[in-house]
């Protein structure tokens, strides 16, 4: 720009130099900030590995009564995945239904405030969800669990005996589902609303009913978006700590498919939160090691979600 001037006046030269200096300083600062973010993420991984690796030598009391740290983390990993999967089974139909109501069924006057309400609910702190789960949800679910046990007791999930407090893994999964619901719904709503109007009008013009239009035009268009949204919700459910730590009355690191009894599998995050207060020495390393496992798991799930999302963008 200024360099293109053939014979600049002295004051212009000065100005050009300061602007070049300013540019250099500013762009370096921006670059520095960007590199700091990279360093921070690397720091998270490095510090977790450094403080987590000593846990590999933990046995017996140090590993919470397990022969090795793997025997401690393994069952927790199982509980984490089980609760998150249950949550996703609950949240999938609800989120799709809610998002379709907002984008396609509700009259505009109703859709806007409802969408707003859903956004606000994404902001409710997890500790409040946990509180509500204990005080309101858990007692109400006990009769449901009794009913499930009587009629579906032959499925290992509902084998019982039914917990009298209702603070089971299934209750935790319901709370997790409610917490993931606003996020998944918000993404789905955006995707459904992006369906080309021409596709929808074409379907309607051919005489399709509203549901046929959604099945023929909206859902195929949104398919990869739905998968991505669900994976991102899954990532959130896997890492959620407080709701599970509060709602679940956990038995420790056990593997149990029974999700309505009082002998529950615990999740990694909740186990860290519950055990941290009275941990010391090598036990802290064990907990950090468990956190490292959780980090890797959520990383893989989120990575898959992003990958599906970008692939869908290219195609759509």
């Amino acid at each position, binding site marked *: 720009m200024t360099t293109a001037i053939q014979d600049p006046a002295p004051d212009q030269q000065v100005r050009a130099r300061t602007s070049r200096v300013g540019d250099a300083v500013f762009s370096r600062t921006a670059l520095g900030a960007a590199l700091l973010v990279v360093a921070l993420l690397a720091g998270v991984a490095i510090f977790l590995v450094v403080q987590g690796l000593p846990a590999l030598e933990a046995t017996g009391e140090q590993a919470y009564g397990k022969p090795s740290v793997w025997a401690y983390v393994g069952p927790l990993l199982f509980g984490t995945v089980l609760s998150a999967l249950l949550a996703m089974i609950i949240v999938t139909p609800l989120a799709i239904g809610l998002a379709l109501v907002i984008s396609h069924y509700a009259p505009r006057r109703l859709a806007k405030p409802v969408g707003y309400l859903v956004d606000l609910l994404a902001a409710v702190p997890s500790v409040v*969800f946990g509180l509500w789960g204990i005080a309101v949800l858990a007692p109400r679910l006990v009769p449901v669990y009794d009913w499930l046990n009587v009629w579906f007791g032959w499925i290992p999930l509902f084998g019982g005996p039914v917990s009298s407090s209702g603070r089971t893994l299934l209750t935790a999964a319901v709370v997790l589902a409610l917490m993931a619901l606003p996020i998944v719904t918000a993404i789905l709503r955006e995707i459904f609303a992006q369906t080309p109007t021409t596709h929808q009008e074409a379907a309607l013009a051919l005489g399709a009913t509203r549901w046929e239009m959604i099945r023929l035009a909206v859902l195929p268009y949104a398919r990869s978006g739905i998968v991505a949204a669900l994976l991102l919700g899954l990532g959130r459910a896997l890492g959620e700590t407080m709701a599970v730590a509060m709602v679940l009355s956990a038995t420790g690191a056990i593997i149990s498919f029974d999700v309505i009894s009082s002998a529950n599998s615990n999740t990694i995050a909740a186990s860290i939160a519950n055990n941290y207060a009275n941990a010391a020495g090598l036990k802290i390393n064990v907990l*950090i090691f468990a956190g490292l496992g959780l980090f890797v798991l959520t990383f893989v799930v989120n990575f898959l979600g992003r990958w599906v999302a970008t692939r869908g963008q290219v195609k759509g």
Partner: protein
Amino acid sequence: MKTMIDTDIHPVDRLEPITGGTLPRIAPALVGVCSVALGALGLLLGLGLVGAVVVTWLAFSLALYGWTRAIEGSRQATDSFVRTLMWTAFVLAMVPLVSLIWTVVARGAPVLTPAFLNDDMSGRALLGVGGGIYHAIMGTFMITAIAAVIAVPVGLLTAVYLVEYGKGNRLAKIITFLVDVMTGIPSIVAGLFAVALFIVITGDPLPRLGIGGSIALAVLMLPTVIRSVEEMLKLVPDDLREASYALGVPRWRTIVKVVLPTAVAGIVTGITLAIARVAGETAPLLLILGTARVANWNPFNGPVQTLPVYIFQSLGQTTHFKYGEIWTDRVWGAALFLIIIVMSLNLVARLVGKAFAPKTGR
């Protein structure tokens, strides 16, 4: 005989009408009223509330399906059935969420007195009446503010780099990917990172200090800030930048004076939402902040109490035979105040976004 000839001449008269039968407009309402009546009958016969609702729902969806199928055909019937399912999902999703807000407000509102907000928990380890959440409110503000001071400049500059300088180069792509990875860091892992970091820095096996909590929150905030600022900067039209360059304005002044002011509303909204999100975080703070009963203004030494951690830790005391009820009150009061803080931050963010929305926006 005569009619036969007639049909031969006017075949149109014998064709099916092109419009099928349709249900009257009030049909769903009619079926709804009948189903509710049936449900009420079930309630009288001792089905219980849940049973009655299930009966009502079954009656409504089956009757409407059957009626539509009889009059309008199976495709329309499926359509109306799916519509019922959709609205059911909607109601099922809304009931717990409304119940949550209602419970917190109903149980927290009587507790929220000026005394509760202005008192701390000094001298009340487990026993004792009174007490309040002053120290926890101040702790929340301090920890969140320090986290914002760390995360906002770094996040803002990173987004500027990604959009203005890095545009599509290799480093920018890697950073975008890493930011996506950071979005997925579970909050408790951020807390563990802060713990591991300060074990190394201080040499203390159980570090308890405010700045650690702020760093953990900053790790959680950064990706949200970067993402939202990035989106906003991308919305600024290139015409503005080019016009500025054409006037001989250097690049950095273009960014500071033209690009950022154009996007300021969206940036403020995004940052406020990120702050609102971390203000309610519990798990990382639980690990690094410990328990405090009075306000601690020194972020570099000693435990600090924040509202979410206060709620979680007080919950453990609610089973006490004598003071349990007082602890329960404190828990709900603190929960309501926390929700008020988070929701008002959200409202402010939306209002700012709306009031200063750029005219070039979507």
